[in-house]
């Protein structure tokens, strides 16, 4: 970057950069609506401010670690893997994850040497939040949503993943009541290694599970 600043060298004391605007200073229509409804519900005693805080804390507390635990278990336990592919909800509940909050059907799709799965939601931002937490911002971007379904191999290459022609790329557009999680393949020579091999992106399908760098 250039070191040049467009300012007056004759009066250095008066030199001031413009202030960065605060990122949260736009009171949009929907932000106002949320505040108004929340304050009304608190006033009416439907819930308390602490309930709201706790709900946000719980939401932020869900991270891809949950998905990693599920995948790592499936890698070492064939019976668990069979259950995961057949009834993912039951398989997750058996690891102690509360799935009751989610009124959708979690569906796990397995990567094999011949099939690579990748998930997208072209209509909005449906995502397996119960196992991965909140989606990354690129997952919600218009570019990812429109391009992943139309030119998945080009997009995957931009993510650094180039797949051979004989591998079928299977895009899953989560348009309705299903949420998808990719079960990545276990990298060679990683027996005994922990679930840290399983990253968020490998469970979305834009990367492979890899040996630690």
């Amino acid at each position: 970057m250039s070191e040049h600043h467009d300012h007056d060298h004759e009066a250095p004391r008066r030199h001031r950069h413009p202030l960065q605007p605060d990122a949260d200073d736009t009171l949009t229509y929907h932000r106002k609506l949320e505040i108004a409804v929340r304050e009304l519900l608190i006033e009416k005693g439907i819930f308390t401010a602490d309930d709201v805080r706790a709900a946000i804390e719980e939401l932020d507390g869900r991270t891809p670690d949950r998905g990693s635990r599920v995948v790592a278990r499936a890698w070492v336990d064939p019976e668990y893997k069979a259950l995961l592919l057949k009834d993912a909800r039951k398989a997750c509940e058996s690891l102690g994850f509360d799935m009751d909050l989610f009124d959708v059907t979690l569906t796990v799709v397995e990567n094999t040497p011949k099939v690579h799965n990748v998930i997208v939601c072209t209509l909005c931002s449906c995502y397996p939040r119960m196992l991965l937490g909140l989606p990354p911002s690129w997952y919600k971007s218009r570019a990812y949503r429109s391009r992943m379904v139309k030119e998945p191999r080009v997009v995957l290459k931009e993510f650094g993943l180039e797949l051979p022609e004989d591998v079928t790329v299977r895009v899953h557009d989560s348009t309705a009541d299903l949420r998808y999680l990719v079960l990545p393949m276990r990298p060679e020579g990683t027996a005994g290694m922990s679930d840290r091999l399983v990253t968020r992106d490998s469970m979305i399908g834009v990367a492979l599970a890899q040996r630690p760098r």
Partner: protein
Amino acid sequence: MKRAFDPGDRVRVRKVDAPGHIRTPYYIRGKEGEIERFCGFFRNPEELAYGRYDCEQRALYRVRFLQRHVWPDYGGPRHDTVDIDIYEHWLERI
């Protein structure tokens, strides 16, 4: 409850321009694919969106489409697919 399709059935997505909260993406309307699995019965999102919580349930399927059928200029191999969840009332048998 009854459903109309089984895995392996060939279907075409209805090509209609309907208003409201439609969960059938525009790009797949009129395209032909194959039922991959029956996913269960779910409340119709086109009704749910308007607060009709007691609306009837609809059969939901995962339908598999060959990318080269969806995008005539698809640049990848012939076997690549896109799988989409589609409600029964959007599908017709072919």
